């Protein structure tokens, strides 16, 4: 799949970027860390023999979704809403500690499973993936043959999203007109 050293380097970048997003005081910086994370993951996809997904990841996530985030942040001027280390009040403290505790449990479970031996790899031909035809053609055929119904449903979903966004934008404008 990939040599451990580049893997660990990339993984370190990915985790650092994720943490940067989590801890950044400035929402724009959070967004930039998120882009870094996405691009690292895209490189993982390339290494995992998924070039199409890698390119889609960059185009959609980095090129569209995060730009949208930045757009909204700049529109609202919301980059410095409140830092994460503000004063902590009663119920919030409970929330925070519970959350961190549960997160630790989650990582702990994963670590436990991996030390138990991880995924059972007997009988799985791990070389098949390297020669798997993941070209856009193959992916397209899979999409339009086995997954044609989900594909249509996704189209409907996107249509619904467009309608929803238009309605949100629209009602506001009319409200302003009335005012």
């Amino acid at each position, binding site marked *: 799949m990939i040599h451990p050293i580049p893997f660990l380097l990339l993984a370190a970048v990915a985790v650092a970027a994720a943490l940067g997003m989590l801890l950044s005081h400035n929402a*724009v*910086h959070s967004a*930039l860390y998120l882009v870094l994370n996405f691009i690292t993951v895209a490189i993982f996809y*390339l290494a995992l023999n998924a070039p*199409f997904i890698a390119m889609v990841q960059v185009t959609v996530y980095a*090129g569209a979704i995060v730009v949208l985030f*930045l757009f909204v942040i700049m*529109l609202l001027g919301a980059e410095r809403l409140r830092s994460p280390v503000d004063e902590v009040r009663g119920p919030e403290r409970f929330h925070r500690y519970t959350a961190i505790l549960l997160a630790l449990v989650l990582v702990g479970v994963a670590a436990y499973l991996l030390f138990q031996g991880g995924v059972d790899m007997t009988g799985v031909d791990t070389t098949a993936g390297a020669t798997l035809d993941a070209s856009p053609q193959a992916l397209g055929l899979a999409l339009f043959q086995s997954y044609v119904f989900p594909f249509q449903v996704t189209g409907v979903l996107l249509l619904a999203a467009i309608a929803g966004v238009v309605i949100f934008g629209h009602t506001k404008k009319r409200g302003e007109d009335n005012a």
Partner: protein
Amino acid sequence: MTPGAIAIRALIIGFIISLAVITGFAYTTLLERKVLARLQHRVGPNRAGYIPIPWRGGEKRLLGGFMQPAADAVKLFMKEDPTPAKVDRVTYNIAPMLAVIPAILILAVIPWAPAFRLGPWRFTPYFAVAPGINVGVLFILAVTSISVYGVILAGWASNSKYAVLGGIRASAQMISYELALGIIVLIPIMMANSMNLGDIVEAQRPVWFIFIQPLAAIVFFIAALAELQRAPFDLLEAEQELSAGFNVEYAGMRFGMFFMAEYMKMISLSAIFSTFFLGGYGGPFVDRLPWLGFIYIILKIIFCLVLMIWIRASLPRLRYDQLMGFGWKGLLPIAVLNFIITAVLIVMAEEGTLAPLLDTVRQFFIG
């Protein structure tokens, strides 16, 4: 080839192309100034660097101004480069780089010439992402989609109202026109039945796609102009409204890098346009003399560049709402319709239903 060899080859080719494009960028600025000047009945830069013709007493000069880019570069490097107060320092500094990098990256997948042999070495004069599986077109889309970051971050980080407005305008414009661009790109892909740019060029061997799909080519060219933010879509540089838009707070070489990004993107998009619609490196005798491909594609790029400059000299700037309206209500529907019709016709032709249908129609009217 081993991965190491691929990496080394990529590095060498990348280095050569980057150098070539940086030089090309410099002379594109000169080309623009010269052509614009001619179109406006001026002479243009003719002082810096010339070859005097001695027997005319040094009055007549050859190649006047060919050192002008160097002079510009020196000027930009020598200028003071102040950083305004209260900018977001890190972002402010990386924004110009984020603008330049995608412009160069696009060129990574352009096929410059057919594969050829030179002595013992075999050259494939372009670098494919993920060797073996070609997603060259997707790579172009991915890179153009992240090229908006330089602009949007420069605008935001400058901590200036003009810059933010320019940045937001620029990003809205780029995102809008990228959609039409992305859809139009599908047409050459469908016609060539491949996402490999080499295959797309080869598919244009009998006839260039611009002749089969003139509408698509026009839409692509317009969307590319908007993506480049060149006239008549250069709103973010509308001096009257925004002074200079997102880069108003930049000076010196950091400003120069935005400048560079724009011209490099001109070259890259011209290269893409040539590849998709003008037959790429194709031309007479390319089969026998592969290196001719370089010349052909460069000629085509220069043709596109001159066209862009000409348009800049001829057309007035659009208003912002006209610009967005044109993108969403004009180009995008045309692109989608063109795409759907092309797809239907291709499928019908492959199914063999097109010919009988045309036959039936013909029988119906002619008998």
